[in-house]
């Protein structure tokens, strides 16, 4: 009898303590936000007192009597210079402190798969009008709100942004003017989730978000450096596809060499530029599952030249902004271009991953190439794919 009471008591305790109520974070009417810090100046004697391009992003900050932020609804701390490739999958699993984008590895409510696009690199934020602040912070591992008060006051951007519900936003901190280094915020409402994109084409659009006066007065290279790192404010872009062998030798894909895509114009108006496309399986001999090791080369030429009459080669002299090339390709495949970039380990802009019963299966992506003050950045957005079956 006694035993039974004790057992019941134990059962009761077990039942009582097992009931944990988890409150899931839920944002009604979310907008999706991803932030890049494009400030990338070197400190020289000329701009030595410019704030360090190492930022904290604050949304709806709470200020004290002296106007110094003491709290914020959303904080993106340790926002360092952006990485050359913004990957199509989130940084959330890594533990680095310094972020190349927001949300990066911050533990936030990430975006869902929306209309077939993986928004896990976007953070969910409540839609509506929000005060957005960027503060230049010291380069250290101390979280922003634990810094002494005098190190929290260097606010470089303070503005209000209106976010519409269930829309995707990419926010950039940019340099408005090359001479004054005035920082500026640029918020682009992305349209790819609404566009009828084919899943057998790879899409890419181009922006030149350089500072005003960068081409005229900017210095990106000393004489010993790589040529052709500056482009003019208006350029045309041509794409070329090539297959890359295991020995890292490339062979052009027939019919996909020097195809005109469109114009790239330097501007800071947050308008989505048209998307251009190339086929996911350009090589007719491919098996339509894995496109094979491949690279994409984008040739930028000023409007006076076409791909056919292009007189410039990278290993010749400086073209003074009339020519440059960006090559997105596999690792260790360099070639001789001004901007080699490693995106997908095998296939550049095409994401190749284990899916279904296939070890390597290629998927089309939507890409954004941004040229900012002498550097190219690529953002790849992945589309939904079948999970692997082992």
């Amino acid at each position, binding site marked *: 009898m006694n035993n039974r009471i004790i057992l019941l008591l134990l059962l009761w305790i077990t039942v009582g303590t097992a009931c944990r109520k988890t409150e899931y974070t839920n944002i009604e009417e979310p907008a999706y936000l991803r932030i890049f810090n494009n400030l990338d100046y070197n400190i020289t*004697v000329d701009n030595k007192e410019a704030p360090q391009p190492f930022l904290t992003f604050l949304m709806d900050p709470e200020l004290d009597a002296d106007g110094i932020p003491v709290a914020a609804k959303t904080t993106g701390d340790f926002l360092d210079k952006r990485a050359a490739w913004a990957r199509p999958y989130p940084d959330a699993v890594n533990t680095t402190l310094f972020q190349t984008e927001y949300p990066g590895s911050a533990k936030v409510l990430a975006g869902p798969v929306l209309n077939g696009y993986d928004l896990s690199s976007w953070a969910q934020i409540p839609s509506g009008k929000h005060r957005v602040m960027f503060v230049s912070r*010291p380069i250290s591992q101390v979280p922003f709100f634990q810094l002494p008060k005098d190190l929290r006051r260097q606010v470089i951007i303070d503005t209000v942004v209106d976010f519409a519900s269930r829309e995707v936003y990419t926010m950039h901190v940019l340099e408005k003017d090359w001479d004054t280094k005035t920082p500026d915020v640029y918020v682009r409402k992305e349209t790819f989730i609404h566009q009828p994109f084919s899943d057998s084409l790879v899409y890419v659009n181009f922006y030149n978000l350089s500072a005003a006066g960068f081409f005229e007065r900017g210095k990106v290279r000393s004489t010993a450096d790589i040529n052709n790192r500056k482009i003019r404010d208006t350029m045309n872009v041509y794409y070329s596809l090539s297959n890359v062998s295991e020995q890292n030798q490339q062979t052009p894909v027939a019919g996909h060499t020097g195809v005109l895509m469109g114009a790239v114009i330097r501007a800071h108006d947050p308008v989505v530029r048209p998307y251009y496309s190339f086929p996911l399986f350009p090589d007719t001999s491919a098996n339509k599952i894995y496109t094979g090791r491949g690279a994409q080369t984008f040739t930028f030429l000023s409007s006076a030249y076409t791909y056919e009459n292009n007189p410039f080669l990278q290993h010749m002299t400086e073209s003074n902004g009339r020519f440059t090339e960006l090559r997105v390709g596999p690792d260790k495949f360099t070639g001789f271009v001004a901007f080699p970039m490693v995106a997908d380990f095998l296939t550049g802009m095409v994401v190749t991953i284990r899916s279904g019963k296939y070890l390597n299966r290629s998927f089309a992506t939507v890409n954004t190439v941004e040229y900012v003050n002498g550097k190219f950045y690529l953002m790849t957005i992945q589309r939904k794919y079948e999970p692997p079956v082992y």
Partner: protein
Amino acid sequence: MRYNTFRYLFFFFLLVIAGCRKDDLMPPRETAPVRAMGDFIRNNYDLSLFAAAIQKAGLLDSLNQTGPFTCFAPDNKAFNDMGITRARDFDAMNPDSLRLLVSYHVFKDRKYISEFPLQMGNKYVTLAGAELYVSVANIANATHTPPENRNVFVNGAMVYDAPKRNVALSNGVVHVIRKPLGFKPVTIQDHLLADTSLSIFVTVMKRCKLWDGLKEKGPFTVFAPDNEAFRKYNISADSAARLDPEKYEAVAFNIYPLALKPKRIFSTDWTQIAGTYGPISSMINIGNFAIKPVYDYNSYNNTENVFIHMMDVVTGQPSTNGPSALGYRKGFVQGADHLMSNGLVHHIDDLLLDPATLRK
């Protein structure tokens, strides 16, 4: 048998008694008190001249107050290089300006070296009311250096390595610096006018219509050669007054106030940012010339190498239009980094460019 038991018991109790020693592990309540800043400086052999200056300025008691303070204290070597070798030498100085100078070395907060952000020109308001500029360069791999070991400069004065930095005191912290900080609450124009050995430079600035700009807000950086330097190039007070700037390329004379562009460049900034091997584009570029102020400190031998190089931007070589290297007048400690309300003045012992080679 019984005998043995007693023996065992005896040793057992002995062990118990011996094991029961109770040590008083509490430290004595009164440890030596950490001294206040004023007392520390007054009792430090290496800071005796700075202590004398503080005493003369009547600030010693203030530095024993609660604070907290951060003090950049020039050591005796720093004052010796200024020509001050005895406490008596301060008597010749105006007590008000001495008070201002001394209070310019202290600001009200406790800042250890690791607390200065990786940034050039962190501003702190001193007890004198004016700002001083603490520079920590974010050079390559700077984040790998422990923050307390970084190279830190205050207004062009080097902060010595440990143990001469981060001296923690009851009411603040002392960092020992290479040279006294110069500050005058007047404009650059007033400073240049007050110094009769710069009269030719003043005339030249007036003739080139650069003079009025030097009373504006700035901040400006001015390299001011003295009269002797001008005479070396056959420019006397008389010929300067008749100087026709139209006959020369603009850079020949507007290089001295850096074309009145707002810049605040201390003598150590370039080396701190670029090391000693930076490209020409990292130097102070004016027209087709670049000024490269070098401050090279050897911590092993405690020696320093300070000079100004003139570079030709077109050829990438040392300038042939005048001297390729020159120095600060009366040495680096006395000549460089004179901070004014609207910028700073470096006194130099030669012209940056020979005007005769830059005739149109």
